[in-house]
């Protein structure tokens, strides 16, 4: 399968159809892979794909990482289903043009959640929870796909969310808050969660604004809570569930549980899941005459 991807990448570069192919290469230790930018056809053999490729690559298409995109007119990118959801959402939000991107779709049966759990293969003991219930294992929007694309029913408006969300929701409010206070005690406002997110694309993030200073940059409780809650709100209806924010957190705080909970709320209220349609407008920024209003009190 990867040979077909490499061949297509080689062809795209040789024909000058794309400036760069973004993909995965071997990482600096056997359990890891790393993003790679291939500019020359002879380098395509560096491209790999296996269950260690949990990185979401579309963050490099986000204008916040503009320096990386400098000079790219058309980009090819290897995408598994969740990554392509992010790309589709970026296009739907006008952050990218469809014809700027050539999507090399890859089939995915899941990714290993952490390098320390890699033992040579993907299995139920190391599969990331975001992969459970995934309906884009065969990706939905591609320019190239190795082999046939079977039909997949993606009409279910409900995404599977982690059982941890249900666990938290069962707790009483003060116990739930205590859980977050303990976890957030570790946060030191490094903003890794923001930088890996494909949808955090504000040129000047709200937390970097100084006139006025909306969010305290310091890592005390107020500064930490206000940051995470603001980010969760900014992503409502937009988060495509890649789980990178939690993976990137150097202190292993499960920040994406907020996003998952908000996803459930959006599903209940609007029957909407982002990242599936290039034309869909997400419910929080569009108005239809027949929008539900019964939850507005």
């Amino acid at each position: 399968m990867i040979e077909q991807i490499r061949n297509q990448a080689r062809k795209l570069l040789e024909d000058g159809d794309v400036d760069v192919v973004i993909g995965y290469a071997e990482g600096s230790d056997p359990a890891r892979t790393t993003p790679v930018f291939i500019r020359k056809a002879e380098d395509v053999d560096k491209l790999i794909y296996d269950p260690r490729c949990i990185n979401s690559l579309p963050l490099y298409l986000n204008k916040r990482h503009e320096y990386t995109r400098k000079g790219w007119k058309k980009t090819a990118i290897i995408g598994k289903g969740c990554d392509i959801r992010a790309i589709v959402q970026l296009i739907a939000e006008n952050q990218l043009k469809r014809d700027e991107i050539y999507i090399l779709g890859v089939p995915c049966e899941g990714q290993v959640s952490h390098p320390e759990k890699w033992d040579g293969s993907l299995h139920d003991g190391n599969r990331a929870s975001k992969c459970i219930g995934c309906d884009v294992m065969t990706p939905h929007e591609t320019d190239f796909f190795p082999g046939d694309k079977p039909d997949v029913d993606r009409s279910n408006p409900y995404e599977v969310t982690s059982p941890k969300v249900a666990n938290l929701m069962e707790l009483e409010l003060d116990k739930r808050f205590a859980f977050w206070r303990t976890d957030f005690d570790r946060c030191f406002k490094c903003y890794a969660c923001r930088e890996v997110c494909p949808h955090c694309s504000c040129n000047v993030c709200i937390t970097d604004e100084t006139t006025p200073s909306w969010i305290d940059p310091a890592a005390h409780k107020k500064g930490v809570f206000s940051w995470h809650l603001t980010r969760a709100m900014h992503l409502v209806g937009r988060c495509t569930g890649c789980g990178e924010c939690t993976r990137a957190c150097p202190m292993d705080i499960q920040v994406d549980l907020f996003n998952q909970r908000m996803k459930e709320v959006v599903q209940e209220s609007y029957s909407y899941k982002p990242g599936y349609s290039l034309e869909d407008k997400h419910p929080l920024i569009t108005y239809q005459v027949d929008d539900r209003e019964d939850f507005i009190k």
Partner: protein
Amino acid sequence: MSNIYQPDLMTIAKVINEAPGIKTFHLKFQDEEVANNFSFETGQFGEYSAFGAGESTFCIASSPTRPDHIECCFRETGKNTAALANLTEGDTIGFRGPYGNTFPIDDWKGKKLIFIGGGIALPPLRSVIWNCLDLREQDGRYEHISIVYGAKSVADLVYKREIEEWNEMDNVTMVKTVDPGGETEDWDGHVGFVPHVLENDFKPDPENTIAIVCGPPIMIKFTFEALERLGFKQDQMVTTMENRMKCGIGKCGRCNIGSTYVCIDGPVFTATELAALPNDF
């Protein structure tokens, strides 16, 4: 153990509107003991704060030879400077300093001095200009002092009155210029960018001369190149650098150019020292 991050309180004794967006503050320490013990040397800077906003780094724009009060001159560009600009006479600000190294004015005895600056970069030069002028009045130690200064337009010139004062002084050559398009009908100075006027109109002789340059990084670069073409050696050229700063005392790791911290190893550098620094500014 003293809290090195805690400022001394100063009262704004006077506010002068120098140019659009640019103000000068005259400042006096509120605590008499602090006032009596305070001293600084020309070239040093401080961290000035409007409480509630934060600290900003400015040079001490007054001369140590005139210790009645200290001065700073700044342009309103962001949150901290906007908060300072909103203050008026009688208000309190915080001051930490003096920090940094100093202009080696003793080494310049017997030499001719040329001060070259642009726009808001005149204040650091102004401190050393008055310092040198005052010392020369005492013991005639500098042969000749020239000042080449320009701004975008006539309105943007800082220390307008002092430019005229220097113009009137014996043994001082005042070369003032504005950028092309910035002149007014009655402008009697040059028209042209500072490095250009320096190289083509003023054309100073490098013999026994020290050039002290201040301005944005790009202007320092062009001015040094112009001076080199005029025959100046690197150790005859001095500048004062700026970089984004916070603590001012070598701890927050922000203002470094390679291993050189502008706040403790500078802000005064010779062109020789600058040439040895990596391309990090």
